[in-house]
């Protein structure tokens, strides 16, 4: 134990020395010459250089014009991203809303000087000051992509799009006359509690839910009760996009919360599915590229910011991933493969009905310590899936 303590003491001292000695990093004021390299922590499929599919490449041209060799470290969860950025050694991260604020609070990312990014003004105005990357009026990132969690349904069972999420939350007969038991799915992640809360927000206004990510004990309990009903309807929860695709093909699943990614792949495979955002609205994700506070290649990073907004990236990535560009013009100006119809299919028109993922914390708008924090969401959702 003593050795461990000595070790800890030594490492904290070393850490303190490092932070003490490094100059406080102010935001950049001008972009110099590229440093020749750029390392990005990204979701799988987010930074493609034509190796998976020749048609999808938004790195090669950037490398040629900027001279910055791009290296990518893929991460599978938001927590992995936070851990990698805490470790350091990376320049950029494509953080979702449930990671971005943690990075800002932890002092791991630096303020962005948007004046150095000529295309900043082309970003969807609704995203420019979004609360998941803007803190106290300071910008800590450049919007990358966003998308909704849609309700996917089988068009042979539903001749018309379902108007409510109740098909996955309450026991009922579907339009083909058979019960929905065993024929619907739900997301196998604690953040799905927010979907239940959003449903209650619409149907039980007396609970007074104002945000599905800020729930007090009573509201939280109501959401869990709803999810317990859902457990009796769901045979298996989905966590992997390809398993859900398989379940829609082979397991007789006809309705589920999903991503446009799966909808597009199933449609391409001629499976009769479509997606909708029902009357209650939907949850969604919005990712932001953020710059590490000790980034070794800040000039290349700023070149990437501009590239990310102005090149074919926004357009092609939105096709590739089933997402919506943060630059609306990318849908129509033919810089890539995306079209206006494609953007609408991926959720562009429904922006106002989407509540974007944020990490639930105990200190919320209802007061300090009034809300149920995320780690309890995790253990309780495990209980619900286990039949508790």
């Amino acid at each position, binding site marked *: 134990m003593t050795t461990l303590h000595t070790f800890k003491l030594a490492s904290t001292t070393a850490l303190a020395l490092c932070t003490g000695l490094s100059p406080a990093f102010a935001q950049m004021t001008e972009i110099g010459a590229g440093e020749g390299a750029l390392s990005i922590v990204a979701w799988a499929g987010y930074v493609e250089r034509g190796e998976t599919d020749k048609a999808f490449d938004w790195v090669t041209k950037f490398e040629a014009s900027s001279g910055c060799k791009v290296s990518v470290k893929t991460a599978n969860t938001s927590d992995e991203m936070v851990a990698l950025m805490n470790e350091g050694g990376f320049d950029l991260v494509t953080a979702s809303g449930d990671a971005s604020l943690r990075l800002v609070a932890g002092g791991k990312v630096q303020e962005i000087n948007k004046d150095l990014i000529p295309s900043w003004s082309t970003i969807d105005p609704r995203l420019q000051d979004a609360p998941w990357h803007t803190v106290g009026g300071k910008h800590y990132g450049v919007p990358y992509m966003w998308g909704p969690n849609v309700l996917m349904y089988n068009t042979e069972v539903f001749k018309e799009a379902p108007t409510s999420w109740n098909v996955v939350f309450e026991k009922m007969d579907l339009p083909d006359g058979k019960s929905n038991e065993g024929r619907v799915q739900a997301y196998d992640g604690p953040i799905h509690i927010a979907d239940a809360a959003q449903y209650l927000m619409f149907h039980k206004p007396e609970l007074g839910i104002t945000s599905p990510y800020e729930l007090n004990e009573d509201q939280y309990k109501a959401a869990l009760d709803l999810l317990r009903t859902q457990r009796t309807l769901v045979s*298996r929860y989905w966590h992997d996009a390809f398993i859900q695709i398989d379940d829609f*093909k082979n*397991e007789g699943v006809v309705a589920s919360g999903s991503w446009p990614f799966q909808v597009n792949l199933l449609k391409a495979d001629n499976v009769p599915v479509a997606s909708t955002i029902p009357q209650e609205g939907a949850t969604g994700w919005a990712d932001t590229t953020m710059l590490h506070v000790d980034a070794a290649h800040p000039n290349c990073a700023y070149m990437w910011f501009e590239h990310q907004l102005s090149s074919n990236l926004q357009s092609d990535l939105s096709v590739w991933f089933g997402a919506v560009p943060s630059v609306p013009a990318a849908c129509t100006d033919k810089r890539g493969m995306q079209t206006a119809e494609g953007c609408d299919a991926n959720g562009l028109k429904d922006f106002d009905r989407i509540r974007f993922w944020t990490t639930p914390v105990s200190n919320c708008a209802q007061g300090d310590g009034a809300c149920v*924090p995320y*780690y309890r969401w995790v253990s309780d959702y495990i*209980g619900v899936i*286990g039949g508790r």
Partner: protein
Amino acid sequence: MTASPAILPERGPGDRLTALFWRRPRLLLALLLGPPLIWLGVVYLGSLLALLLQSFYSIDEFSGVVKEEFTLKTYAELFRAQNLDIILRTLLMSAAVTLGCAIIAFPIAYYAARFAKGRWKAVFYLGVMLPLWSSYLVKVYAWKLILAKEGIVTWVAEHIGAGVILNAVLALPGIGGNSLSTAPLGTFLVFVYVWLPYMILPMQAALERVPTTMLEASADLGASRSQTFRTVILPLALPGVVAGSIFTFSLTMGDYIIPQIIGTSARFIGLAVYQFQGTAGNLPLAAAFAVVPIVIMLVYLAIAKRMGAFDAL
């Protein structure tokens, strides 16, 4: 011609080193054993101890940050209803899988050890080992398709008129579900399939060591076939059965991929550890969960030892 001296002069550092080792044989031993022992001690046991240490920390209720103070709070959390469920569920599944594997593996191992000769023996070994050479994930995904509602099992059952039986089995509470691939029964089947070779091989090794003379003696003394089986073969083969069961039991207990793909999504210990350390950032609880299989396996090994499973070692 001059007489060569009894002791040759040293020709270089190599000779000096050899001489040193010759004079102090323990030094050589220490040098040879050192690296593997350091590996075992530091990398293997050290990481295990670090894990154990984590499980005595707790997570701060408000911020979700790990508090590095020793407490038993995290272990108390294991006894919450939903966590006990996970432990019990995993234990039951491991026991069932072990039993299922033993029942299926015994006749196969017995045949291979006693009757298979020459080419058939090779075929047997290949048959048992072949599934181990293909990717574990591919096998599990293949089983997902086989067991799906619109998969081949359901299809065959319906065409031979056994659809009613399949549905009756699936309607059973506790093991049934909407289809085999979403039922606990399906999880069980896939576990049995995946771990079966680990049961067959040690069993076969043990059965091969049972001398035929003993069986003949047993028959000469008038024992019936079932008596011979119960009183001679089974006790002598027990170490093999126990060795196999240690594999199937511990492998099932730690697996987190099969229950993720096949079954009702209800958590098993491995899956819970994966989720708590990953998405929840609750490392102490994940560590406490990881200690559970270790404790269970220690108890299991103690029982196996008492049954005389290691007497042959």
